[in-house]
């Protein structure tokens, strides 16, 4: 994994960190939710929608998973995530779109990614968030390896 100055993001937690990839546990999810709500808290937004991607037991194959490992070409992934968020924000006329994808090893039930959207109405906010989720699964250089109950592992091909 590429070197990253995580301390910068810890300091930035009072503000919403930019969309991108971050080390596991470098961003508190509750703080993230709070900062997004505060950033659109002037009364102009009528909806804020959050998506949290979790590690599930049922993997791609026939075997159950016990966890997964995420890695990234960070320069590519950060550019792609920021581009996705800005394009979706403009396309759906939203006030805010953000995606924060975590890297490292994760156990079942742990959060791997958080996406958020906020806008005037719920319809466009739900739709915009869904679009951002579908795009982050396919465009940023994120690579996922599932770890199975029998101790084997497999890199996934496609989201």
């Amino acid at each position, binding site marked *: 994994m590429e070197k990253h100055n995580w301390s910068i993001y810890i300091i930035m937690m009072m503000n919403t960190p930019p969309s991108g990839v971050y080390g596991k546990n470098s961003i508190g999810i509750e703080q993230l939710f709070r900062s997004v709500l505060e950033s659109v808290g002037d009364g102009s937004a009528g909806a804020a929608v959050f998506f949290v*991607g979790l590690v599930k037991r049922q993997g791609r194959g026939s075997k159950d998973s016990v966890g997964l490992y995420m*890695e990234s070409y960070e320069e590519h992934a950060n550019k792609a995530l920021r581009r996705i968020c800005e394009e979706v924000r403009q396309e759906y006329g939203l006030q805010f779109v953000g995606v924060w994808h975590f890297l490292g090893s994760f156990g079942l039930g742990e959060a791997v990614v958080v996406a958020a959207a906020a806008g005037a109405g719920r319809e466009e906010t739900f739709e915009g968030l869904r679009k951002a989720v579908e795009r982050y699964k*396919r465009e940023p250089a994120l690579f996922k390896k599932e770890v199975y109950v029998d101790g084997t592992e497999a*890199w996934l091909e*496609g989201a």
Partner: protein
Amino acid sequence: MKVFTKYYAFIRERLGRSDEEFELEEGSTVADFLKLLSEKYSDKLVGLFDGPVLRKGFAVAVNGENVDMSDWNTTRLKDGDVVVILPPIAGG
């Protein structure tokens, strides 16, 4: 000129390294780089290449931006460029 590459996912695991530096002739293209890589690692990267051509599902980025397959033969690399083969992408 020198170009740099980084390896990710199963490519990194098969090669046992995360990055590498290559010496290429001035004016070399993305396709020239892929040919060099496919020849150097023809044993370890079985299944990644079909001859010098990357298998479907893989992409190439230069300095963090994708280069379309249709442009691999005409996109010239510069000294210091970072060329990365992107394995199939799977966001969480």
